[in-house]
């Protein structure tokens, strides 16, 4: 069932999120669900039922006319006339019109060839998918029989693993089919998880880097008085901290390189992946909240050592420096925690933000509609926010050598980011974005 829903969602991923499209999706889903349920009741296997439902689904471009979405049809669909479209001039007209703008129309022979070819490939797609499923069914049955003959009782857990693998494979096949139809690169749940792992590690490293930047001043002030070797140690430690910070920053930005294609290509999460990320975000909610709270408390309390030393007025310069060191340490840890929580949340949001929010694929779950910025320019700017802050910090510090003050940029940047998120963040108040991607029965669609 999940496979079929994912197939449908992927198929529709690039279409605009309008009442008509949602209604079409709803009703197609109703029909597919009914058919699937009945096939299962007739005793077909899950894979067989899925294969049949998908093979008999038909062609998306039949819906272009009733939905008024001709312009939104991705090229893959637009250039794939249906079986009946290949010969009739009427359908051929619009399938062709977009291509004609780009290249000279060289005659009907060529078009006919193309049309036939496209039709062939469309059929192949379904046939290929169905065959894959059937073959696997057969293979599975054979394997199971062999296994039974081999040993009287099979290992139960192994069986479960097999089942899960087959389900995963059919999911992948359906995604590919939908992908070819919609012309979008869709991110699977597995790939989304890989991205999250990398992005969270990057957030840790980045937080640690900032921590080093902030505490780098501490050894200098600590050994300010001392002479000779100790002062030198302070300087060396300072530069080591800066070096470590820069290294961590570089590594962390390198971690996400393998995922550049998500940004370069037109992509979106498939339905299962969107749900997965939404769940992940929900599951880390309390831990990131705790991190942020502790971070803020540490920042606030950081003045205590300094004031404490001052009030006690012991007057020892060393104690003053120690107070200062503690202060920096607490701010460092605090800012690190705040950045960590923001980074982990941000990674989920970045995934959910893939895809055009006005399309089905970009708004299939509730969380997807709540992330991101309204203004695309803000969006672009914010994608390099921490890199920019790092650059400013380093330039400022190295040019003026006021390391004692320049670390302040980190807390300020954190607060500024929170403000920008509040001010320009997309909230779920768009009139067309009310609905959840859930497809259970029809709801509030508009009637013409």
């Amino acid at each position, binding site marked *: 069932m999940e496979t079929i829903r994912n197939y449908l969602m992927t198929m529709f991923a690039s279409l605009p999120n309008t009442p008509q499209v949602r209604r079409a999706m709803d009703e197609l889903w109703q*029909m597919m669900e009914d058919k699937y349920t*009945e096939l299962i009741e007739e005793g077909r296997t899950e894979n067989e039922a899925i294969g049949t439902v998908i093979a008999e689904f*038909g062609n998306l471009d039949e819906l272009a006319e*009733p939905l008024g979405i001709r312009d939104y049809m991705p090229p893959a669909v637009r250039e794939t006339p249906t*079986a009946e479209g290949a010969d009739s001039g009427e359908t051929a007209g619009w399938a062709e019109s977009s291509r004609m703008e780009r290249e000279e129309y060289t005659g009907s022979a060529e078009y006919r060839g193309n049309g036939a070819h496209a039709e062939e490939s469309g059929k192949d797609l379904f046939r290929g998918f169905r065959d894959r499923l059937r073959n696997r069914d057969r293979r599975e049955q054979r394997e199971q029989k062999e296994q039974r003959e081999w040993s009287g009782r099979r290992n139960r857990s192994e069986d479960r693993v097999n089942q899960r693998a087959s389900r995963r494979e059919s999911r992948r096949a359906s995604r590919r089919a939908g992908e070819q139809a919609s012309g979008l690169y869709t991110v699977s749940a597995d790939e989304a998880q890989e991205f999250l792992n990398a992005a969270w590690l990057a957030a840790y490293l980045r937080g640690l880097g900032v921590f080093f930047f902030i505490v780098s001043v501490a050894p200098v002030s600590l050994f300010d008085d001392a002479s000779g070797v100790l002062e030198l140690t302070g300087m060396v430690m300072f530069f080591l901290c800066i070096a470590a910070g820069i290294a961590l920053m570089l590594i962390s930005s390198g971690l996400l390189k393998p995922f550049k294609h998500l940004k370069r290509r037109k992509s979106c999460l498939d339905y299962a992946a969107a749900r997965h990320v939404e769940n992940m975000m929900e599951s880390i909610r309390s831990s990131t909240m705790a991190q942020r709270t502790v971070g803020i408390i540490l920042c606030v309390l950081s003045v205590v050592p300094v004031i404490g030393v001052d009030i006690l007025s012991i007057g020892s310069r060393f104690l003053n420096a120690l107070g200062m060191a503690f202060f920096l340490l607490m701010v460092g840890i605090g800012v690190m925690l705040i950045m960590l929580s923001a980074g982990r949340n941000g990674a989920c949001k970045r995934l959910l933000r893939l895809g055009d929010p006005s399309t089905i694929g970009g708004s299939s779950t509730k969380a997807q509609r709540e992330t991101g910025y309204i203004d695309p320019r803000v969006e672009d700017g914010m994608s390099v926010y921490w890199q920019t802050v790092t650059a400013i910090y380093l330039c400022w510090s190295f040019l003026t050598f006021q390391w004692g003050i320049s670390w302040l940029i980190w807390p300020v940047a954190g607060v500024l980011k929170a403000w920008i998120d509040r001010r320009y963040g997309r909230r779920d108040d768009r009139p067309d974005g009310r609905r959840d991607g859930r497809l259970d*029965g029809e*709801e509030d669609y508009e009637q013409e």
Partner: protein
Amino acid sequence: MSGISSDVIRGYNDTMILYLLLDRPSYGYEISKMIRSLSGEKYVIKETTLYSAFTRMEKNGFIMSFSQLAENGKRRTYYRITESGRRYYRDKCEEWLLTQEVISKFISPKGQRSLTERDVTGSS
């Protein structure tokens, strides 16, 4: 012979759907199931074809949609035929009878022209 060409049957999807709605409202899957069984499994209508026919006919006022709780407790969209839908159906039936009459004059599975026809052309 490899099944029905969807190009030919396309003009009559509406007729089939309207026929099935003549005495009671119905919903998507039921209609597709009835088309399949009434045609003796010779014609399977695609989901997208069915849905585009629904929207087109609803726009033309031939059918009306309403949602209702099904037996299994789920909401489902049902379709009901309208008066103008019935008129359209009768028109289509007449059109088909005429079409059938005309086309059948030119149908010869054996690939030979019939005698009577040759006589007609010969005398004129």
